[in-house]
């Protein structure tokens, strides 16, 4: 056979450790971790980045991302990130949070970090459910969606309406870049990476708080195959949580 010279055009980013993750097959965390690592590599900021891991499926983020990290209490990552950034303003500080962490117990910390224009970046994984604890309702669970604490489907009379965090946070002056993306298919993944990069660039430029909400499939707790789960994101979630950039500073190209 002819020896053909081939070059690698896609491989694992440097900042993502070659460790098998504990995430379920098809989970959006794995994709988002990789995008985060790619952005960190491309911006050349690994050695000056500190991350704050949440409580949730991604509590073990620190096993996968090769940067200095804190493990936060549930919901409090933005406060911890604030403490870190105020001591080391030269560091790039990010939090990585799920919907329970950010939109339930940690809503105050999220809103106030954004209101203060805290120069940190938040990656918010919205999978409309509480993954780690086995599939209970989240503040982002859709009306009619079945979870272990809404077994007959989320009812408005009992549990109210899901929260659109990105739209809400975009109303705050301190928020510099707010975007919602998905990782359910390759084209959305490419857009998601662009948004994550812009969010970090907003921080690097000192413009204020940045957040990227990532709609993610949760095949296990949605009781679907990964392929069906990605369809559910595109058919059901995007209808309620539209993709797009809700706040963009003029300076971010």
């Amino acid at each position, binding site marked *: *056979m*002819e020896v*053909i*010279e*081939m*070059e*690698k*055009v*896609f*491989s*694992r980013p440097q900042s*993502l450790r070659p460790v*098998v*993750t504990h*995430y*379920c*097959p*098809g*989970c*959006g*965390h*794995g*994709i988002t971790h*990789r995008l985060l690592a790619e952005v960190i590599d491309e911006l050349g900021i690994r050695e000056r980045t500190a991350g704050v891991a949440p409580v949730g499926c991604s509590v073990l983020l620190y096993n996968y991302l090769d940067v200095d990290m804190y493990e936060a209490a549930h919901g409090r990552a933005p406060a911890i990130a604030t403490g870190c950034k105020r001591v080391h303003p030269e560091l790039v500080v990010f939090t990585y949070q799920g919907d329970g962490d950010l939109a339930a117990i940690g809503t105050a910390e999220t809103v106030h970090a954004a209101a203060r224009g805290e120069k940190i970046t938040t990656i918010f994984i919205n999978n409309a459910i509480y993954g780690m604890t086995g599939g209970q309702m989240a503040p982002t669970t859709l009306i009619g969606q079945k979870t272990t604490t809404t077994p007959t489907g989320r009812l408005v009379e009992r549990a109210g309406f899901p929260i659109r965090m990105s739209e809400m946070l975009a109303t705050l002056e301190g928020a510099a870049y707010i975007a919602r993306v998905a990782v359910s*298919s*390759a084209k959305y*993944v*490419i857009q998601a990476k662009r948004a994550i990069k812009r969010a970090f660039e907003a921080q690097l430029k000192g413009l204020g708080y940045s957040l990227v909400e990532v709609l993610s499939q949760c*095949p296990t707790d949605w009781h679907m*195959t*990964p*392929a069906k789960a*990605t369809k559910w994101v595109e058919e059901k979630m995007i209808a309620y949580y539209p993709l797009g950039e809700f706040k963009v500073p003029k300076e971010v190209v």
Partner: protein
Amino acid sequence: MENVAKTEKKERRAKIKINEDFCKGCGLCVTTCPLQLIKIANHISKKGYFPAEFVDPEGKCTGCALCAIICPDVAIDVFKTKKPAGGEK
């Protein structure tokens, strides 16, 4: 462990390698590949999954890397033939 099907002597434009130690058989690459060059294998990997495998006997892979982009486990490396020197990038 590589999952590369045997090829003919024809020059390949591109190929992928799926690492069975990382692949969880989620199947997203299978549905993503525009040329349907990835299948779920019949064997079980060391990790207990039915992993994905690259099946491209005719060398159709273009190296679009959409499979690698969607893979949640960074199990896919993508290779493209090096362009000859002086050629377009």
